[in-house]
């Protein structure tokens, strides 16, 4: 009897202590309405899938829609920090929103795990010990594309991107690795949907290939119009114009295009296979790279929760930095600026039955870090 009572009391005490110490609240600010909603929804769905699979009841997630507006994102971050009292923030898709929210949040002692945006200032001079990027630094995929162009013996690229900071980072990233000549370089209007003028210039330029960074609907428009123009040069792009959400809308026009990505659904490891299967079973569609980033972000967080209490910031930070979780990308580690060191693949758009998707053809850059790590002083 005495023993029994003791055990009961002990387990009650343990339970109370557990609930008090290990509970963690995450604030997710992401884009769920408007033109860019597909990306935010994928990140959210990937994240929540991992939370559900972990079965942890002490992990609470608050989700809000930033409408792709920096001012809304800042308000939401304030609300989450002050009234919701979250411990960790995550979710932002766009670099301009990340620049508005991240520095202020980490300065208030919160952790921020980026599932997508990786603007260069936050990787270099503006890095912070509480800011972790689980996706990539913005330049990474473009650098891999530049490296691929060299290996594919492309010597005269025509390159284009929208006229805004991430567009300039993109072409800078490409040129950092690409060794050939440029047949032309165009900055298009952000949100432009008609590319007849640019395609006519590509035709007249004598280029041997085209590299473009046109995320979302801009890429759909460009690819459809390019396929219909009779210009027959090879096209290379980052995964942002070839993700699972976009390919069905582009259709056959994208077949055979090479694109660079840190993730693909055919990366061969058990975590990734299980992720693709369970995502498709739960949501009825194939995951995109954004979904994989959301999934990895949640699993990184859960791995840190297993090792340390978020109240003990130093221990929790080391647990995050160790990155001991099973990534869908296989090997995953953080560099000195808390940005990933990872392989970046070259994929090709293929058709499987009715569905357009990607398959890996080679590794573009192995164990790739970023160009800004040296500027980061933590």
């Amino acid at each position, binding site marked *: 009897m005495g023993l029994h009572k003791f055990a009961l009391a002990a387990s009650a005490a343990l339970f109370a202590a557990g609930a008090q110490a290990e509970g963690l609240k995450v604030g997710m600010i992401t884009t769920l*309405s408007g*033109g860019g909603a597909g990306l935010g929804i994928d990140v959210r769905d990937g994240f929540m899938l991992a939370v559900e699979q972990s079965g942890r009841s002490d992990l609470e997630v608050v989700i809000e829609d930033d409408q792709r507006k920096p001012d809304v994102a800042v308000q939401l971050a304030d609300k989450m920090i002050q009234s919701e009292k979250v411990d960790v923030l995550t979710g932002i898709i766009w670099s301009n929103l990340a620049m508005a929210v991240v520095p202020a949040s980490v300065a208030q002692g919160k952790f921020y795990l980026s599932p997508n945006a990786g603007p260069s200032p936050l990787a270099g001079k503006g890095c912070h010990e509480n800011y972790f990027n689980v996706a990539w630094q913005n330049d990474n995929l473009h650098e891999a594309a530049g490296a691929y162009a060299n290996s594919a013996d492309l010597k005269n690229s025509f390159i284009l991107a929208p006229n805004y900071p991430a567009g300039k980072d993109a072409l800078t990233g490409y040129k950092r690795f690409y060794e050939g000549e440029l047949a032309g370089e*165009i900055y298009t209007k952000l949100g432009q*949907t008609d590319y007849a003028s640019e395609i006519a210039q590509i035709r007249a330029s004598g280029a041997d290939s085209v590299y473009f960074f046109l995320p979302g609907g801009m890429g*759909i428009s460009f690819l459809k*119009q390019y396929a*219909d*123009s009779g210009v027959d040069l090879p096209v290379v792009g980052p995964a942002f114009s070839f993700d699972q*959400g976009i390919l*069905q809308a582009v259709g056959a026009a994208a077949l055979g295009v090479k694109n660079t990505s840190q993730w693909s659904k055919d990366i061969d490891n058990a975590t990734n296979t299980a992720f693709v299967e369970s995502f498709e079973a739960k949501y009825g569609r194939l995951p995109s790279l954004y979904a994989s980033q959301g999934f990895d972000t949640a699993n990184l967080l859960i791995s840190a929760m297993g090792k340390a209490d978020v109240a003990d910031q130093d221990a929790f930070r080391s647990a995050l930095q160790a990155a001991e979780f099973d990534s869908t990308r296989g090997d995953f580690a953080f560099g000195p600026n808390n940005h990933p060191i990872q392989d970046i693949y070259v994929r090709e758009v293929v058709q499987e039955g009715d569905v357009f998707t990607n398959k890996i053809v080679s590794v573009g850059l192995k164990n790739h870090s970023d160009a800004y790590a040296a500027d980061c002083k933590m």
Partner: protein
Amino acid sequence: MSWILLIEQTLNGLQFGVMLFLMAAGLTLIFGVMGLINLAHGSLYMVGAFAAAAVAAATGSFVLALVASLVAAAFAGVLIEVLVIRRLYDRDHLDQVLATFALILIFSEGTRWAFGSFPLFLDRPEYLAGTVTLPFGIEYSKYRLSLIGIGLLVAAGLFWMIMRTRIGIRIRAGENDREMIGALGVDISLLYTLIFALGAALAGFAGALIGAIQSVQVGMGEPVLILAFVVIVIGGIGSIKGALIGAVLVGLTDTLGRFLLPQIFGLVMTPSAATSVGSSLASMSIYILMAGVLLVRPKGLFGGA
């Protein structure tokens, strides 16, 4: 730069212009006759594109898809006219802007609810794929050439309707004096609904035609709406002729500006600076055009007295 490239770019500008005209025609009629600022006109463009994509996916026929875009957008137009817009004619423009802005949000989220957040697939028909060779060896997209043809046909039909038919006479009368044609026994509320449906159908038709070479997604109508407003301000509000001339002017200025400005700056600057300055200035070119036109003719090119 060669002459061939310049002619090709001019065709591109013309194609862009005639598609803008389809949007601007409805907008200018609705403003001219009813005095209504309809921000939701871009949503009707989106409705047309989504209806076309859905029907094309179900039947595989592009012609049926175009019919669906006309019907769906006209139906949506009638619906919002009867339910919402009708109550706004006597209100001031600020109320109209507020109510039609609300309609944008309702249409956008409603479309997302019905079709999901991911862009839909809509492709040009196989028989319009590829390119044709024009005189002087110019290779040009068959579909874009058809767009120019269709746009000009619609414009001709619209002029015929407004100048030669009874309904056209009433529309013109409505533009001149709304109260008077009501007093003369014309069923003004039916006329308004008809004009609204016509404008909506044209917008939906444009959405379907353009959706086939761009992306069919939520929010696709708003950028076009802004350009359509620029067109009707340049052309003179209420004037169909103004809308046509304004649309072609805007189309040519935008396309040729994007193409020529970086090259012109390239004569005096380094290539990267020229690209950056040229493309920034090209984004502004149509607004500079608008400011220039308004400076000389404050009511637009064909605006009334």
